[in-house]
């Protein structure tokens, strides 16, 4: 007989896994920081060049290098970088002189609601639609939804944005075509109106792929043996799906939510360009064009942090939902 694990044993295993997963998170973060650092520093030419022109005097060059920090050896630069990361101090932009952390924080106030809004809306659509597509898989509705989602995952998110702008903002004039109120969130109403189309854009694209996952998970459950058993025990189809199907279908969907959230985040970055929103994305794009390395590093680091953390949270939720994962060391769903 397989040894059954009691409650305290399960708790021990869970905190064991938690510790290992946190360690893995930190390790990934460290690796990403190193990668970021190297990629930016290993450019041909000195980062300080961005501040200089062809006629710069040696003193100006030296001053620029001191400012940028490229006058010290690479290891020292790296340690300095790590230290900065530890305090989440991203330095100042060489181009604009602004504090990078403050810039990023104010930009996040737009990108985060945009991402979360789009993601939640997409989920709200995908769950019922995906379920319908599976429950009516053979009917015209199921086939239609299947084909629509096939179409939906092929559409570039910025194109959806352009089309929506064209229809709702420019032709119909219901919503602003872009931009965000200068006073930011203090103008609550205007801010929401500015975010409506962008959120819709993201939601349309993300709901296509989420629908496919929900549909696939639901199909698996509908055809499963345990639903058949439940029905053989006198449960109606609906009751069987509610009592058993829901959780079992949710498990594989949750396992991909981490990656989908990261994808949504990137989608938000692109969408900000379409609607001229002063979010993280436009900051990054401008910084890349201007070779503003402090900003680039800061934004990419924060993005990486977001991606890794959403993966971590998704793993945690999945682990709580699916008891079978406790049986595997690595906690990967099979």
């Amino acid at each position, binding site marked *: 007989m397989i040894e*059954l694990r009691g409650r305290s044993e399960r708790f021990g295993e869970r905190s064991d896994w938690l510790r290992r997963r946190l360690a893995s998170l930190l390790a990934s973060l460290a690796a990403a920081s190193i990668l970021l650092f190297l990629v930016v520093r290993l450019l041909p030419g000195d980062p300080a060049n961005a501040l200089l022109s062809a006629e710069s005097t040696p003193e100006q060059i030296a001053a620029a290098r001191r400012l940028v920090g490229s006058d010290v050896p690479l290891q020292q630069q790296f340690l300095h970088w790590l230290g900065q990361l530890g305090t989440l101090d991203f330095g100042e932009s060489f181009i604009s002189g602004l504090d990078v952390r403050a810039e990023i924080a104010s930009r996040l106030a737009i990108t985060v609601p945009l991402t979360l809004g789009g993601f939640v809306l997409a989920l709200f659509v995908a769950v019922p639609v995906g379920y319908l597509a599976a429950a009516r898989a053979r009917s015209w509705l199921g086939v239609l939804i299947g084909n629509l989602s096939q179409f939906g995952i092929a559409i570039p998110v910025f194109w959806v944005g352009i089309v929506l702008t064209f229809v709702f903002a420019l032709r119909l004039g219901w919503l602003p075509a872009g931009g965000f109120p200068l006073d930011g969130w203090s103008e609550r109403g205007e801010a929401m109106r500015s975010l409506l189309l962008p959120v819709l854009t993201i939601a349309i694209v993300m709901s296509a792929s989420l629908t496919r996952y929900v549909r696939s998970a639901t199909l698996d459950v509908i055809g499963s*043996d*345990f639903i058949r058993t439940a029905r*053989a025990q006198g*449960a109606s189809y609906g009751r069987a799906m509610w009592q*058993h199907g829901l959780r079992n279908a949710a498990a594989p969907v949750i396992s991909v939510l981490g990656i989908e959230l990261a994808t949504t985040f990137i989608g938000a970055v692109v969408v900000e360009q379409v609607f001229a929103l002063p979010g993280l994305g436009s900051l990054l794009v401008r910084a890349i064009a201007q070779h503003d390395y402090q900003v680039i590093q800061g934004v990419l680091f924060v993005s990486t942090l977001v991606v890794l953390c959403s993966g971590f949270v998704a793993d945690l939720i999945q682990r709580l939902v699916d008891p079978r994962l406790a049986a595997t060391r690595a906690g990967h769903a099979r």
Partner: protein
Amino acid sequence: MTLLQVDALSIATRAGAPLVDGLSFSLNAGERLGIIGESGSGKSLTSLAVCGLLPADLTATGSVHVGDLEVIGARESELIAIRGSRVGIVFQEPLTALDPLMRIGRQLAIVLRRFRGLRGAAIDDAALAALEEVHIRAPKRVLRAFPHEISGGERQRVAIALALASGPEILIADEPTTALDVTVQAEVLDLLDALVAERNMALLFITHDIAVVSRIADNVIVMRSGVEVERGTVRGIVHGAADAYTRDLIASAREFDDALAFGDIR
């Protein structure tokens, strides 16, 4: 009144290909019928047809009477009324037949609540009793466990407990021992034997294994490609089958299975 009456049952795909053709049999309380055949003989479909659980792309014709309800063509609400209360099924693979994300105790509780109207502490006691009845050691721990945390033999016992908890008059066992280790097979068979005898249930036992059916059934129907090929008492078939196919089945069973204990034939 016969508990189960099947007349000219035929099951076909949407395209018309017949999977079962013209099967007829009946069962009364205390009777045990085995259906033997290889995979693809249509035997499992028969068991699903009795409860009205055939997959949507298959159609059944003919007549299947469970008590006084005609199953073929019945409304879902009528079928729900007989599932569990009149007919219980034990399936082949208990690992997939049980909800993997729900504790055993809770799955038992659902059935107990529905059919015995129990609540609260009474359910816990009944669940414990149900597990003890199927000879599960350490029933308290099994109640709190998830299906993947217990052994295959225990899982199948749980499945049997679930099927019996609703108090059916007819038990259908669809290859219940096929997925188990050989040593565990004998135990589970004996358990089924005892429980069915105790409750004087009708048993429809489906398998591909002659040795297994000979231990538990009185009469047997041999199926091949959806058609009945021979029927008779187990003793009669094993010792003197009329049909060539049946004789082949028995001969190969004899060749490979030294443990075929003819002394146990009912």
